[in-house]
């Protein structure tokens, strides 16, 4: 069952040099309040696992600007030229993964799966250091699961147990990451009593959620 916490209580739980999954795609579905708080905190040396790093000083870009990140694993960092510059200067380690492989690796990490073979990336430089094998005449590359110490996510609504629903394309990586971290924290616009959400509409069951941060509607938009 999820604990209801404040932003600052969650911040105190986080540790420097830890790995953190952050939900969102192009700043949509980001836990914006937590990102801002981490940007202004004393934390350092974070490994951020997220689709992208936002744009300079916006969304996850704030963590780049404030030099909170030592390594990022994601699919597309091009929208953030500041991250690109730090990467080329050797000050930020970026690991680039095809987006479907990234999503599936996080899913595997959350499902107790030790890895999988995908045809995506065969023959490209992103697969040059990984095992390649042929299965039934088709070439595949091995992908290892991705997990993190924390997942910090955004959902539209939670019930007080921690069951989650999302809004439109703000869902993206959030439900996958909820399953793939040791400790999952979710910023939510609203918390409603258990029983208020239809059991049919719940996307993330509460077993995956450790902490909820209720935001006043609008704060996390």
């Amino acid at each position, binding site marked *: 069952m999820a604990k209801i916490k404040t932003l600052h209580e969650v911040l105190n739980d986080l540790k420097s040099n830890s790995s953190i999954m952050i939900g969102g*795609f*192009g*700043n*949509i*579905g980001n836990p914006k309040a937590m990102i801002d708080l981490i940007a202004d905190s004393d934390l350092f040396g974070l490994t951020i696992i997220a*689709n*992208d790093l936002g744009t300079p000083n916006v969304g996850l870009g704030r963590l780049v600007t404030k030099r909170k990140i030592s390594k990022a694993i*994601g*699919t*597309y*960092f*091009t*929208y953030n*030229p500041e*991250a*690109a*510059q730090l*990467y*080329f200067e050797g000050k930020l380690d*970026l690991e*680039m*993964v*095809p*987006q*479907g*492989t*990234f*999503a*599936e690796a*996080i*899913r595997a990490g959350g499902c107790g799966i030790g890895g999988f073979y*995908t*045809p*995506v*990336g*065969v*023959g*490209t*430089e*992103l697969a040059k250091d990984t095992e390649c094998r042929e299965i039934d005449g088709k070439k595949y590359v091995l992908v290892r699961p991705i997990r993190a110490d924390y997942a910090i996510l955004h959902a*539209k609504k939670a019930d007080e147990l921690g069951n989650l629903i*999302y*809004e*439109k*394309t*703000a*869902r*993206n*990586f*959030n*439900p*996958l990451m909820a399953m793939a971290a040791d400790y999952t924290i979710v910023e939510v616009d609203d918390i409603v009593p258990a029983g208020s959400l239809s059991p049919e509409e719940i*996307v993330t069951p509460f077993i995956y959620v450790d902490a909820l941060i209720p935001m006043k509607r609008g704060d996390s*938009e």
Partner: protein
Amino acid sequence: MIQLSEAQAKERIARRVAATLPNNGIVNLGVGIPTMAVDFLSADKKIYIQTENGMLGVGPSPRTPEEFIPNLINASRSPITEIPGSSYFDSATSFAMIRSGRMDATVIGAIQVSETGDLANWALPGKGVLGPGGAMDLVVGVKDVIVATLHTAKGGKPKLVPVCTLPLTALKAVNTVITEFAVFKFIHGEMVLVEHSSDVTLDDIKAMTTAHYFVAVDLKIKQV
């Protein structure tokens, strides 16, 4: 040989892409020319657009402020709307439908396409393009991979080449290449010119294309 402005060339490609897309097909459209193609679909053709950030049934851009929803974007980060029958899903489900071959077509850009159908479209070394996004998954998994690209790069540098020299997106993945002057298909691993526009000759195409290709017996000349 005729010179088209970049805007004219892109519109011509987008129109040709629109004509190629299958009726009632489920398609994923990349940024730029591919997305423009929607504007040129004939009135009797309908397509369903998938966006890899988690939606099937993408509607047009919002026309009024009331239609604008902050949490509703496509993979190019542009605001979109719903259509009757739209659905949302997480990114793993999104790429499951992409990778499993259920989607009819993907239309994407290219920096280089090789004569064997290899594609390079995600990285120009040192240019700050960092990461393939969903491009590698799309070109490996979707049934018809349609590359929509200007025939040559700035300064006339060939983009349809014998071998890709830039980082690859995928090997032997391209099915169709549509440029402002020509349509090529990859048939049994061979690149075949199936159509060119009436304002260029076979020699003009040859001069712009360093890739080796065959000319289809039933080559079509498209009047422009």
